[in-house]
């Protein structure tokens, strides 16, 4: 083995050894495999909408299930690609690696190979889960008959998508060296997926479906006209759109990877500090000893809450990740509100359509932000090592916790206001008339802000109780996926209806918003999350236990 190849293999081996010891590497295939199993075995997971009488094990249904799982799994692809390329910088090993004999190509080659091996192992859980689910539902013989129908979408959809998205995320991670950039790109991919899928479901085909990085749109477009009898038996079609889609995204991934191999560095680039403001732009205070004259005293609770809330809201809203997610969310809401609002809608109907678009298309961004920043509230001070400085201050723990949560809510309120305003403005531009304001603003609070405040509070509780950042994030995201999955099926149950916000149906909403349901759900969730926060607050400790 040549020296270069040996070094690349050594990098890959070390990465795989680290990945083997990561609990998440085992959790990822478990999640995908269980989702696939739950779908194929007839469980509560409904991965293929509007399946009609077509059985879950039909090749068409299995193919669409695979596209859904691989779209969901891109969160995993992002995490793996981010971990392999960003960890060395995070643990400050990058400079050690960069100053040895290792070359960029060997380093990136080894990392990429390891990432792809891990991803392949993770995604292999999909056919395994599907096959086991079919066996559990209809017996081993039936499952053996369906083996081809399980493996075909894995080979034609799952692996190419994993490869294309994996290359793209890996390349951006290597070039940008920032987690938020990878997450931002992941959201752009999800948005393209939603847009292309929407176009395909609306009758578009050809180039419109090429935009889908997860290859769902070409499959939907090619099989849209199939009758149920064909859907029940015909294999996944490999038409020109699917081939073009895959070729396009694999080429994009390969180009991005080539750019990374040509331009990325092993060690994080040295940040060049910005020029300091000109000295003397304001004279220093005349009495430099003024600080000696002021004594400290324990602060009252409300002053602490206000101070901590302002501090947390400031650092959150200045965080690049928050700003990227907020900007992408605003873009997504604006585009979808523009598409949703009819040109001739009345002010009430335009506002209702704008609200429907905002609640539907802001959800993912708000959920991500609420989950991530609830975790940051618990972990950031410790990770940045500000905690010992803050813990040594004469401020009550309860007031600090309350202030932190209030600051997060304030930042969420700013974001919700932005998203609601963007949707409203899109409706204004679309119709040329001023949409209803007062009811729209009140409904934005009830349907957008309150659910996400409650979600953020619950996420914070999960982080405090679980006491593991990554596990808590995954638990929250998984809980959201489960909630969304079962939501449609549970709407007929009285207790679920009581806890869920009424859907925003624009026509009905314009006539009269279902305030009773929204207020009941708001009250229930705010009470539940408030109790949970109060209980979890007792676990928040200052300093270290004795």
């Amino acid at each position, binding site marked *: 083995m040549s020296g270069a190849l040996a070094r690349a293999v050594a990098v890959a081996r070390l990465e795989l050894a680290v990945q083997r010891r990561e609990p998440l590497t085992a959790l990822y295939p478990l999640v995908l495999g269980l989702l696939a199993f739950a779908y194929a075995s007839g469980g509560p997971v409904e991965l293929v909408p509007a399946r009609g009488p077509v059985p879950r094990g039909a090749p068409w249904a299995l193919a669409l299930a695979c596209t859904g799982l691989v779209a969901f799994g891109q969160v995993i692809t992002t995490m793996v690609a981010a971990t392999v390329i960003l960890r060395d910088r995070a643990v400050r090993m990058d400079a050690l690696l960069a100053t040895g004999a290792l070359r960029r190509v060997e380093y990136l080659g080894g990392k990429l190979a390891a990432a792809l091996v891990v991803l392949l192992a993770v995604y292999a859980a999909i056919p395994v889960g599907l096959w086991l689910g079919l066996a559990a539902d209809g017996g081993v013989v039936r499952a053996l008959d369906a083996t081809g129908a399980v493996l075909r979408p894995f080979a034609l959809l799952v692996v190419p998508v994993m490869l294309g998205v994996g290359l793209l995320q890996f390349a951006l991670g290597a070039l940008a060296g920032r987690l938020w950039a990878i997450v931002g790109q992941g959201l752009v991919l999800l948005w393209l997926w939603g847009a292309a899928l929407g176009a395909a479901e609306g009758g578009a085909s050809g180039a419109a479906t090429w935009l889908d990085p997860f290859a769902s749109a070409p499959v939907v477009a090619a099989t849209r006209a199939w009758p149920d009898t064909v859907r029940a038996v015909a294999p996944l079609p490999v038409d020109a759109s699917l081939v073009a889609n895959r070729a396009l995204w694999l080429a994009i991934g390969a180009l991005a990877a080539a750019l990374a191999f040509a331009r990325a560095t092993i060690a994080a680039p040295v940040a060049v500090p910005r020029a300091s403001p000109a000295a003397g732009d304001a004279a220093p205070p005349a009495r430099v000893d003024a600080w000696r004259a002021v004594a400290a005293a324990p602060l009252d609770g409300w002053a602490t809450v206000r101070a901590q809330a302002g501090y947390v809201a400031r*650092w959150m809203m200045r965080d690049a990740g928050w700003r990227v997610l907020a900007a992408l969310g605003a873009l997504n809401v604006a585009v979808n509100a523009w598409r949703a609002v009819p040109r001739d809608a009345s002010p009430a109907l335009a506002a209702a359509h704008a609200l429907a678009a905002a609640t539907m298309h802001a959800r993912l961004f708000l959920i991500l932000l609420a989950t991530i920043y609830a975790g940051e509230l618990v972990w950031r001070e410790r990770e940045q090592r500000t905690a*010992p400085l803050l813990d040594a201050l004469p401020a009550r723990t309860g007031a600090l916790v309350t202030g932190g949560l209030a600051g997060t809510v304030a930042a969420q309120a700013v974001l919700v206001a932005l998203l609601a305003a963007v949707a409203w403005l899109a409706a204004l531009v679309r119709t040329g008339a001023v949409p209803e304001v007062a009811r729209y603003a009140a409904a934005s609070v009830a349907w957008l802000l309150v659910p996400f405040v409650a979600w953020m509070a619950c996420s914070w509780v999960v982080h405090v109780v679980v006491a593991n950042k990554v596990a808590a994030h995954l638990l929250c995201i998984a809980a959201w996926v489960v909630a969304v999955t079962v939501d449609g099926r549970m709407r007929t149950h009285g207790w679920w209806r009581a806890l869920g916000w009424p859907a925003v149906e624009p026509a009905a909403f314009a006539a009269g918003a279902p305030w009773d349901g929204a207020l009941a759900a708001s009250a229930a969730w705010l009470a539940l999350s408030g109790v949970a926060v109060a209980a979890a607050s007792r676990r928040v400790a*200052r300093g270290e236990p*004795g």
Partner: protein
Amino acid sequence: MTAAPLLAVEGLRVRYAGGPAALDDVAFAVGAGLTGLLGPNGAGKSTLLRVLATLQRPDAGRVTIAGVDALADADAARARIGYLPQEFGFPPALTPRELLAHFALLKGVAPDGTRRDAVDALLARVNLWDVRDRPVKALSGGMRQRLGVAVALVGAPPVLLVDEPTVALDPHERHRLHDLVVELADTRAVLFSTHLVADVEALCRDVLVLHRGRIVRRGAPEVLVAPLAGRTWRARVPHAAAPAVRETQRVIRDRLVGGEVELTVVGDVAPTPAFVATAPTLDDVFAEAIRT
């Protein structure tokens, strides 16, 4: 009549599960002035400072800070201490002025006008005035360290706890920090923890040597050095001969110089004619104290 100490510790014990005592019956009291806390890595210095900063409860003992029982009323004690931990950080997007204003508010420095004046004065005092509105991520390591000092000084606390503050600083920044610490010690008790003997020798009139959780020496540098006067001997011996000396003599220091081993031993007489009498230093005291 002597003034009440600003910082007093009695019978302090901390034991981590499954390990030896991190602090074992530690007791001392200090008034205004600079007290050096010397100890090798793992001696218990950071544990002691965390306990004094109310961040860790001891298993037993009593801590009094400016007349306040710190274990009974942590908030009142926190208003009287300034703490600069060994490792700390700040949100990178916020500016020194914003951060200092926040810490001042949480420390209970009020009202607004007074607080603003105090924050600006502190920024000027630690030479961060020109970068007051720059994000923390754009500051150098020395600037961040000085911001940490400013945070510790907010509210003009009578007791300052400073943990290894100069470890990552260049000589120039180290000198500036020394100047500041000496100036601060005129009216307040400053406990300056370090494993750098030179720092303590240069700054402190009072030294505590902590080893394996116990205070093994206490006093002014010249007092600590006195017992070794006339009993410290030094020689360079060939590498091969060093083990025999180590076995038979009380060697307190041992270093390589030009390929030979320079040994410093303590004893009433020179071990061999090759050993010459040498004036003892605080380094020797420290080495002798932690030898056992």
